């Protein structure tokens, strides 16, 4: 047995010296936080309904709900807890989206990207947020103090309120308003007010430029977006988010996107308009870095700045979720129609275990589709350049608005056609899904060819 040379320094393992531990820890927390949030939404949103609370009062507290004095308090409490969970869901999804976007972009740009805080730099967004909170909260001397301070709250309110009508699963929605999609359009408009206020109150020329651009852009693009939204509304015959989803099926050929060729057009218009309303490339004019320094954000720092960024990235989830609701069949689970859900629910006040399983499944389907659309938005951002102000207006008023009207009127006629020709819906779905698959196959083949031409290969292992 040979002893180790005397001069070999013995090193004590440091924290973080074991990469496996770091990776496992990051993975646990990285999957844990969204899992906990989803679980909270899963449990809270069906249980915070008045019927459930009445049942709770009746069965657990042994009181009559009609005469129980604290009934309204319990209602309020349950809604407050749900609101707390949903807003935190938005904020944390926003942070994770930042991480995901940075990882994807670094992959596209041949650089390493986030890799310091946690495995794969997963906690960079936490570090960034903490850093922003520690910065000096600066308000320019000549700024309009009140409006400057108020602006971020408009933005945050417009963002947080969307979660009221945002579906997560079959029964998982805070409030299934019968004007759900109309409500979504209305509250997201608050974000513009905040941006405009920020641009005006900063008393900076760059911020003013950004604010004016934003006002012109977002208000213009609400029109094609609104008309495009009317297409799935017409197809469902309802403004309610859940009802629109219930009118679609689980399989791609039953989605609104593929059962009506004009809905495909409407989706493209809707997607482009959403990019514009969310100030995402190629419509990131209001904060165009190379032109306006930071646009309406120029004078903001610290927490107020963090709020704007939280909303910008959190809105990606909202945008994607609305698109999934309107066009991609929402949370519909294959082989699980409404009768399956009803059967699983059982007769008692508290639904059966199978029902909860189905809810988890529907939530997973919805989240997966949303993440796909979200990824599409990230992809677009790191590929395209920015368009110019006049081109942005031309695109909206000369192309999107007329085409949206055409799609709207054509959908009316299409609905009449569907009523008279049985099977037309399924046939269209099959044809459109098949052609989309062919296009996707060509896209993948061309991507592979381009990679091979560079002497590269498809490699997904090197993350």
């Amino acid at each position, binding site marked *: 047995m040979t002893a180790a040379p005397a001069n070999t320094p013995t090193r004590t393992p440091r924290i973080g010296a074991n990469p496996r531990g770091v990776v496992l820890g990051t993975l646990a927390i990285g999957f844990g936080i969204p899992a906990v949030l989803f679980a909270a939404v899963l449990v809270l949103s069906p249980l915070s309904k008045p019927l459930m609370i009445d049942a709770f009062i009746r069965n657990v507290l042994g009181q009559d709900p009609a005469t129980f004095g604290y009934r309204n308090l319990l209602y309020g409490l349950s809604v407050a807890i749900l609101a707390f969970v949903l807003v935190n869901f938005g904020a944390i999804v926003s942070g994770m989206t930042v991480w995901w976007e940075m990882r994807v972009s670094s992959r596209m740009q041949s650089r390493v990207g986030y890799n310091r805080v946690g495995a794969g730099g997963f906690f960079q967004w936490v570090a960034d947020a903490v850093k922003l909170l520690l910065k000096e909260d600066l308000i320019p001397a000549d700024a309009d103090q009140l409006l400057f301070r108020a602006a971020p709250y408009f933005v945050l309110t417009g963002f947080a309120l969307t979660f009221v009508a945002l579906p997560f699963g079959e029964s998982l929605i805070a409030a299934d308003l019968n004007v759900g999609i109309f409500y979504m359009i209305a509250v997201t408009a608050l974000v513009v007010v905040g941006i405009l206020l920020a641009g005006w109150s900063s008393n900076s*020329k760059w911020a003013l430029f950004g604010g*004016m651009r934003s006002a012109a852009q977002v208000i213009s693009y609400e029109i094609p977006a609104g008309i495009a939204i009317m297409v799935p509304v017409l197809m469902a015959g309802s403004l309610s988010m859940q009802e629109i989803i219930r009118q679609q099926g689980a399989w791609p050929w039953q989605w609104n996107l593929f059962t009506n060729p004009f809905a495909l057009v409407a989706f493209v218009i809707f997607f482009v308009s959403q990019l514009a309303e969310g100030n995402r490339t*190629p419509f990131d004019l209001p904060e165009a870095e*190379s032109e306006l320094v930071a646009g309406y954000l120029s004078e903001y720092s610290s927490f107020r700045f963090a709020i704007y960024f939280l909303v910008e990235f959190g809105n990606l989830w909202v945008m994607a979720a609305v698109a999934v609701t309107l066009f991609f069949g929402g949370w519909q689970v294959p082989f699980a129609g409404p009768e399956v859900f009803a059967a699983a629910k059982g007769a008692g006040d508290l639904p059966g275990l199978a029902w909860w399983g189905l809810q988890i499944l529907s939530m997973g389907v919805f989240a997966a589709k949303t993440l796909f659309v979200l990824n599409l938005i990230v992809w677009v951002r790191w590929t395209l350049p920015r368009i110019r102000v006049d081109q942005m207006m031309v695109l909206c008023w000369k192309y999107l608005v007329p085409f949206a009207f055409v799609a709207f009127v054509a959908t009316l006629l299409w609905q009449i056609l569907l009523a008279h020709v049985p099977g037309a819906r399924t046939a269209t779905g099959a044809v459109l899904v098949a052609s989309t698959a062919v296009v996707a196959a060509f896209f993948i083949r061309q991507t592979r060819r381009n990679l091979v031409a*560079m*002497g590269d290969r498809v490699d997904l292992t090197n993350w």
Partner: protein
Amino acid sequence: MEKLILRRVGKDHPDSEEMILNFGPQHPSTHGVINFIVETDGEVLKKAVPEVGYLHRSIEKIGESVGYPQFMPYTDRIDYVAAMFANEGYALAVERLLKIDAPPRAQWLRAISCELVRIASHLVSVGTMAMDIGAFTPMLHGIRERETINDLIEALCGARLTYNYHRIGGVAFDLPEGWRDKTLRFLDHFDAFLVEFDRLISFNEIYVRRLANVAVIPGPMAIDYGLVGPNLRGSGVDWDLRRDLPYGPWALPEFTAKVKWSVPVGKGFTGRTGDCFDRYYVRCLEMKESSRIVRQALESIPEGETMAKVPRKVKPEASEALGRVESARGEMAYYLVSDGSDKPYRLRVRTGSFTAMGIIEDVSPGLMVADLVALIASLDVVAPEIDR
């Protein structure tokens, strides 16, 4: 000064509606300290007046205070994005003053190193142009390829940015072992990269629409304003010093016999001749030509010395000389006057970026704010080269 500039932008009505905007000196798309005083009517520019001088370092005066050989490292700082040309121009001027010639192998090495640096410089130019238009990815792809060139140049002369490689009478070092094969391998990759780059950004619909027919500079106007290099060729003027006023390697018959290349000229690739896209795409085509030149030069490089016999004390007789080279940013000229002492009596540097700045004021009226960014990027101005 301030009043003068305000008068020049037409601010003689104090209560007029136009907005005066300081576009710089610290601005993300000026890429250095340049200031533009911009008068805008909403998004449309009335005028943009460049204000230069933020990076003035008296380089010409330094040249007159140090000896001839000592000035060579300073030339790197005139244009640090393409420092090799600044080296070459100065070396050429002093050699003409001393009436000596660099040996053939040194001439070949000068051509190879300069064309590699031209590729590196153009990569920065087209990359930052894409970034200014709003696409971030092409810029980093360009920087990635430039990094390989930096590695090659580092192997050649030990520096990655300020090379100090060309010397009076030749070049400092011969090729290191294995450098030739490494460079040829890189060029194979680079030619494929250029195709990919075109696919990624050059013919992207949004990109073309942002640049085509924007800030058109017709050929005669470009000549009047003294535009040089890719900016001049982008306007459709077929003029390249390497071919039309050959110097150094380009004047050697044995070099031109073995290295075949052509001068890309803008011809309205997507719009009118002389628009931003022409200036951009001429640079893309020039990278392809430079790659051709390096490949052929590496295959035909002769053996021999890399330094001529230069007197230990450089003391040219009283005379004057001009060294003009085709830099990545166009003609770069060193004018030297010697009074017979060991320091130049007068040194004058003529750079392409300075004249390019001059044209902005007259091209800018009617452009939009976003077009001004495109115009500045397409002229490929480098802040230290403007002011020296």
